């Protein structure tokens, strides 16, 4: 593996992958693999080599996604260092640096993903088969990407094709009658490339407590299809177009706190169309983008034995985005400037009015100044202003710096502001619960939630085979939106609950990773995260966060035999929750015990890489429980991949 990729060890997953050609990310012109450098875009909004980007970026490569056998994004991130997945009503979300999923921006090819439920983009919905690279930038990223990038930004970059012909198909079968069938066909010529990807996923779901009627993991039927088309280097012009449709049908049985048994079904559809023309000439590059995205979710809730709690909710979230980013290099300065526009429409049964439109426009500018390259120093000030049709103008500055005093060490720092725009429901919800006599009302006067975030990181490569990364962070979330339960009464006397900007949270900690790669045969990786959190409103630690967490990984490969063994483990320390257990109206702290997860996977290539058979066990230790930690129980799978 190149030392260039190792240099960013912070990035455990980016680090060494084998040099053997895999997938179709090898240049068609047969360029030597050694010149391949990981290129990232999320930290600066333009392409940078991973080891030179002034903004610390974690990368998970296609090889890593394939290695761990992940079928969806949640499975990819499950045992990645410094991340915690949280599973709840909105699906599986990512908790970054101790902040809730609502504070992490999720992008696909730089376009924001719609369809947050309870603030969560469900990562288990996003299929892995078309992902080329996952980039994670920690800390506020609003300076380039706008709203929601407080704890961090996760940018999913989809696959491109370089080989003249490529096709692959994977079929896996596992516990709970889980079937994953994915396929991809791609062609590439000198000036263009096209690919089609499709996937089918089904599972019976699972139940942590067979003694009751309810289920824990939903029964899922999902299919998706995506197509990508590219024009390349037509003079200064290139263009990429992508369209994707996904449909997911999830069914489960829940019990309400009053003892009602509810059959719930969510039928979720997403449709995304993205067009990205690029003009590059000499030191300047202009990238335009147009993106339309549609999220529709139908919820049917059917109460057994009665109709009082029966419910149908139709939610449509439509988003149109357009942007232009111009980057120009002049001497030691690379100036990036751009505009973004976003038009969003929500149609939902629980908002009042039932249809709400919002528009947001933004402009940003950033200067990447590299006064010297020996040693390499980069100073990157930037600022952005968003103007929203509800809360008005909101500025977000950031200053990032990177210094590489020696070739084997890179220090980075960034200090910036992030904001989260109030969601449609927080602004316009109207929800009445007559059984308990209260009404929850949105508040159109909400301000954005804001944070200041500081990140200080060091990446050290003391040996060619060893890479160490350390990142210290401090995030201060202010004006967080919470429900005020004493907001007065409605005209008819029922209690009024209302959203207000009075919450506060602080998270601080240290994330550290180490990767040891011995040739192509052995890779060992480990990480440790220390996290301190404080909920300023309730004067206590944030619930469900583990103060200590760690991951470990082992990859053993023998290229000559085509054999690979992959072990991934994670451990989370005690987590504190708060529940009113004695009914006195005061929440009592309760510590949920530490737990560990362990996944094993082995694969064998046959017929010169054209066939791979694999088998694995997930959650070997059978960790998890129904209340605090609904992890999929121990499960077994096996399957086959065909590649051409």
């Amino acid at each position: 593996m190149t030392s260039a990729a190792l240099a960013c060890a912070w990035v455990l997953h980016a680090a060494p992958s084998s040099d053997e050609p895999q997938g179709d990310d090898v240049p068609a012109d047969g360029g030597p693999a050694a010149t391949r450098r990981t290129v990232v875009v999320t930290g600066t909004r333009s392409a940078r080599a991973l080891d030179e980007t002034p903004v610390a970026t974690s990368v998970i490569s296609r090889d890593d996604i394939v290695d761990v056998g992940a079928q969806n994004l949640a499975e990819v991130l499950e045992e990645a260092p410094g991340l915690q997945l949280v599973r709840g009503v909105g699906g599986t979300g990512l908790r970054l640096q101790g902040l809730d999923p609502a504070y992490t921006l999720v992008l696909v090819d730089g376009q924001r993903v719609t369809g947050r439920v309870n603030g969560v983009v469900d990562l288990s919905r996003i299929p892995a088969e078309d992902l080329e690279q996952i980039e994670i930038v920690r800390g506020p990223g609003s300076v380039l990407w706008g709203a929601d990038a407080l704890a961090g930004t996760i940018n999913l970059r989809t696959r491109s094709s370089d080989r003249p012909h490529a096709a692959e198909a994977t079929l896996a079968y596992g516990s709970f009658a889980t079937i994953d069938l994915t396929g991809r066909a791609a062609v590439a010529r000198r000036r263009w490339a096209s690919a089609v990807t499709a996937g089918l996923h089904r599972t019976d779901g699972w139940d942590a407590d067979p003694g009751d009627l309810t289920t824990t993991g939903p029964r899922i039927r999902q299919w998706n299809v995506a197509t990508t088309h590219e024009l390349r280097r037509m003079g200064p012009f290139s263009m990429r177009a992508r369209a994707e449709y996904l449909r997911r049908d999830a069914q489960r049985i829940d019990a309400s706190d009053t003892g009602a048994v509810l059959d719930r079904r969510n039928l979720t559809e997403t449709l995304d169309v993205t067009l990205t023309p690029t003009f590059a000439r000499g030191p300047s590059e202009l990238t335009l983008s147009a993106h339309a995205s549609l999220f529709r979710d139908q919820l049917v809730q059917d109460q057994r034995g009665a109709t009082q709690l029966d419910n149908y909710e139709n939610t449509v979230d439509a988003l149109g985005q357009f942007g232009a980013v111009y980057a120009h290099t002049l001497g030691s300065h690379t100036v990036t400037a751009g505009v973004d526009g976003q038009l969003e429409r929500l149609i939902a049964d629980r908002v009042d009015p039932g249809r709400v439109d919002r528009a947001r426009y933004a402009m940003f500018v950033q200067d990447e100044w590299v006064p010297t390259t020996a040693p390499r120093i980069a100073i990157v000030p930037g600022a952005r202003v968003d103007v929203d049709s509800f809360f008005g103008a909101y500025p977000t500055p950031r200053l990032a710096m990177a210094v590489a005093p020696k070739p084997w060490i890179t220090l980075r720092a960034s200090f910036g502001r992030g904001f989260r725009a109030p969601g449609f429901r927080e602004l316009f919800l109207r929800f009445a619960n007559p059984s308990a006599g209260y009404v929850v009302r949105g508040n159109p006067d909400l301000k954005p939630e804001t944070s200041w975030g500081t990140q200080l990181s060091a990446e050290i490569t003391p040996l060619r085979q060893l890479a160490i990364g350390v990142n210290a962070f401090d995030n201060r979330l202010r004006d967080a939106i919470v429900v005020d339960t004493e907001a007065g009464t409605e005209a008819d006397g029922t209690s009024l609950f209302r959203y207000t900007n009075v919450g506060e949270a602080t998270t601080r900690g240290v994330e550290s990773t180490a990767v040891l790669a011995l040739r192509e045969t052995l890779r060992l990786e480990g990480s440790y995260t220390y996290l301190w959190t404080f909920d300023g409103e309730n004067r206590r630690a944030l619930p469900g966060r583990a103060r200590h967490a760690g991951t470990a990984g082992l990859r053993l490969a023998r290229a000559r035999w085509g054999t690979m063994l992959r072990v991934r483990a994670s451990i989370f320390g005690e987590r504190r929750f708060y529940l009113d257990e004695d009914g006195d109206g005061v929440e009592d702290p309760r510590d949920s015990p530490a737990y560990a997860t362990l996944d094993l996977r082995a694969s064998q290539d046959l017929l010169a890489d054209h066939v791979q058979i694999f088998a694995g066990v997930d959650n070997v230790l059978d960790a998890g429980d129904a209340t605090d930690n609904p992890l999929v129980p121990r499960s077994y799978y096996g399957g086959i991949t065909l590649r051409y």
Partner: protein
Amino acid sequence: MSTRASIFSFVTTLALLGCAEDLRGALGDGSEGADADSTDDDTGSGDGGPQVDHEQDGDTVITTVDATGDAVWIYLDLETRSQVTVADPLASDAWDLAFKRYDIATNGGVSGPGGLTVAIVDGVGLDAVTALPSGPWLSDAVDGDDTNDDPDYVMSGWYDYDFMTHVLTPKPVVYVARTPEGNAYAIQVLDYYDDAGSSGWMRVRWRPQAG
């Protein structure tokens, strides 16, 4: 502005073209077993009135009231054990207790002319009340300084409210009511939810209280 409108229209059109079937009609036929209609009362003998049902339990009576309506009071006369229809509750002493969702009104004070008064025995169950309490004897009062605009019902303290789950749980508290006719009854609320988990199904256990 017209560009914006046309983009919105475009995405809305896309939305309406959504491929999946509409599930709006799926309710009511997908559940296991027939859905009981909220007026179809199967909690007991069917004796007591359209929204009221009684079960004899030793020397006590368990009465279930369908108080699921947001705007309808269900009036109960304890002496006759029956639901009564009241045109003007402020001019009638035919009723003793009235139920609407989780509210319980009594025919006294601001709620009615019957002069019904209530003594509250806190922290005990019905079986622990063996004699007529000494008082104080209270009745429904005008709205005081609280978070709602309702009258201060003398029996409003029957439940604990969980802010997290929004579930109402009955407290161990017994109300001894002296009715317009001069009889005394001891009353305890047992539940607010029926077997299917629906709210507004008040279950009270009560008996005449000898003094």
